[in-house]
């Protein structure tokens, strides 16, 4: 049996010296290696061999001083570091590094909530702060602010925001709600963006731009620095809310749904992000596949139809939430209902207007009122066995024709590979995240490989059709990045130039989003 990998090309003696230096900096128990220490950092949902993305070791830093010292060692020895906040989004690879043999730089011990400002409605946090942590702090201090949790509430606020995650309240575009960053560059220098670049300034978390230029977005979905603090805007707790859900009877309703939804989102009649869920996605939260279909291949349409009728759900289901004083909420509801009444058999299920103190029970409902939860993981039970999933996440304009085209492209390829269309759209004002999860039993190598093959096919198909993804699993980062091909991949050339300038030794997250350091790119051809 072979031992854990080493950073590629690094002599064992150098690696051991680097690990010893990491221990001296962060403490003996802050460095995990050998004897299964890095095992929890393997991707549990890998669509193939998880060891293809295996870390050589893990180092957990507790503060920026330790971080700076670790970066110094990494530069000296050429140790590739894969930084993670908590590394909890397993649909995209979890905490596993893109480059086998990298050392995971785990930031979860940097977990201070530095400030919560109720007056100006923001928080300033470190990478290890999860949505649960922030929620508990808000509750414990009686602060009248809501956060916007992603589907998996155990994730890091910083990690999710940097990966452009999203939720389902009115603050659902997490990257858009970010204001002010502190970043450590590869050379150990700390930079603060926006107004934070000015000593003694108090507006770091309320004005994004500063004097310019603005760099915050450069540190999202990239490998140009390590974000050590981040400001996030929080939603003032409304007076009350109304949870709403439409059930649409027909598979063919999708185009009409999107066309009806768009103007309501554009003019902010519908405040929350709106979620259009397929029948399978809804059913996977409350039942198992075997209850409806136990045959080979994807669920036939007739089985889906029967399932939807028996569960009392739509072929498409639209969830949203309205916030504010009751009279305003009712007015918004009436406008929305008048618009959707043009779709035959559309059924609106609205919960009674509730005071903001009232907590709903279901996970999806709780998310829409700022309560983190983990109900989304019920999908792991859908297919049986050791359920796992990887996600395909193309961006879709809020146009009915595009939504239908993308839906059919995914549904048909998924069926070809034996997967159900577990998908839906999360709609903001001007774009939708189309999320499809290929659910598989990770104990079944053929299913796992099939999920990987399906994802590759979809990325290529969508690229050819002019659709790009906003995010992807480790295994497909190069392929997804290669779809962004305007002017012979000019964007990637610029990214590589920035990488070379800021991280000449290529120590920070090599391969993240398809951006490879020059030294590795040249070595590997």
């Amino acid at each position: 049996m072979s031992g854990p990998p080493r950073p590629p090309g690094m002599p064992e003696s150098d690696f051991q010296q680097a690990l010893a230096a990491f221990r001296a900096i962060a403490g003996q128990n802050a460095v995990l290696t050998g004897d299964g220490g890095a095992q929890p950092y393997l991707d549990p949902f890998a669509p193939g061999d998880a060891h293809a993305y295996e870390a050589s070791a893990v180092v957990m830093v507790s503060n920026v001083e330790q971080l700076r010292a670790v970066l110094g060692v990494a530069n000296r020895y050429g140790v590739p570091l894969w930084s993670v906040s908590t590394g909890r989004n397993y649909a995209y690879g979890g905490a596993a590094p893109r480059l086998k043999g990298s050392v995971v730089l785990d930031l979860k011990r940097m977990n201070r909530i530095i400030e919560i400002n109720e007056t100006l409605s923001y928080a300033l946090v470190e990478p290890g702060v999860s949505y649960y942590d922030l929620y508990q702090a808000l509750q414990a201090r009686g602060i009248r602010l809501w956060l916007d949790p992603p589907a998996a509430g155990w994730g890091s606020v910083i990690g999710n925001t940097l990966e452009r995650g999203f939720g389902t309240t009115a603050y659902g575009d997490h990257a858009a709600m970010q204001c002010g960053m502190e970043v450590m560059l590869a050379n150990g220098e700390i930079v603060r963006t926006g107004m934070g670049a000015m000593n003694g300034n108090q507006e770091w978390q309320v004005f994004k731009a500063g004097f310019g230029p603005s760099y915050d977005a450069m540190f999202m979905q990239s490998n140009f620095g390590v974000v050590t603090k981040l400001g996030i805007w929080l939603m003032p707790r409304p007076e009350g809310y109304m949870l709403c859900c439409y059930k649409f009877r027909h598979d063919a309703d999708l185009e009409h749904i999107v066309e009806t939804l768009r103007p309501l989102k554009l003019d902010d009649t519908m405040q929350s992000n709106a979620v259009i869920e397929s029948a399978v996605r809804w059913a996977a939260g409350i039942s198992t596949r075997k209850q409806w279909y136990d045959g080979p291949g994807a669920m036939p349409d007739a089985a889906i139809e029967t399932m939807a009728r028996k569960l009392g759900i739509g072929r498409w289901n639209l969830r949203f939430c309205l916030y504010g004083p009751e009279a305003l909420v009712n007015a918004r509801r009436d406008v929305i209902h008048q618009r959707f009444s043009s779709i035959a058999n559309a059924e609106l299920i609205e919960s009674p207007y509730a005071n903001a103190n009232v907590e709903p029970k279901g996970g999806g409902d709780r998310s829409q009122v700022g309560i983190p939860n983990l109900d989304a993981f019920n999908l792991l039970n859908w297919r049986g066995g050791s359920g796992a999933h990887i996600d395909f996440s193309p961006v879709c304009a809020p146009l009915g024709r595009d939504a239908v085209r993308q839906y059919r492209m995914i549904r048909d390829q998924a069926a070809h590979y034996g997967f159900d269309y577990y998908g839906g759209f999360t709609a903001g004002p001007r774009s939708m995240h189309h999320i499809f999860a290929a659910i598989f039993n990770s104990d079944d190598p053929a299913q796992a490989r099939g999920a990987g093959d399906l994802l590759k096919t979809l990325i290529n198909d969508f690229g050819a059709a002019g659709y790009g993804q906003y995010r992807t699993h480790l295994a497909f980062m190069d392929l997804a990045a290669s779809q962004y091909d305007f002017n012979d991949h000019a964007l990637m050339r610029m990214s590589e130039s920035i990488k070379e300038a800021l991280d000449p030794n290529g120590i920070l997250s090599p391969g993240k989003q398809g951006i490879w350091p020059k030294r590795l790119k040249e070595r590997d051809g």
Partner: protein
Amino acid sequence: MKPGRREFIAAASLAAACGRMSLPARATVQSATLSNERGALAHALTIIFDEDLADSRAFAFRSRTMGARIVPLGNDIGALWFQSLMPLASSPGNTITGLTRHADAFLLTRFAQGTGMRVTQRTASAHAGPDTLVMWRIDTSGTRT
């Protein structure tokens, strides 16, 4: 051959209490061993169970007779972890085990691994009713953070 439901529950609860996690899938348990092993339960054992699953409930109630503390999953597994289970991580010698659906087993064992708790078993599965359940066990020894 898979065990019958009663045998499975008996084996699972005994295995949880005694730290023998390899039993459930093919268990043959003699009732006499229950009393023999009961005295071995010297560590603090917490059983997590799913109120909606008969076999999970039966597993928990049977384990309770052997001195285990039982805790329902409730409707927010994250809150369960942070409020009830994570505090156990600070004292060595605690064991948390459960017979749950895969998703719940996955979440709790991942939470545990994230704080350095040792997951000694999590994949022994058996058909014990309409749902496929997973038996898992985590120990606080070796807790890191």
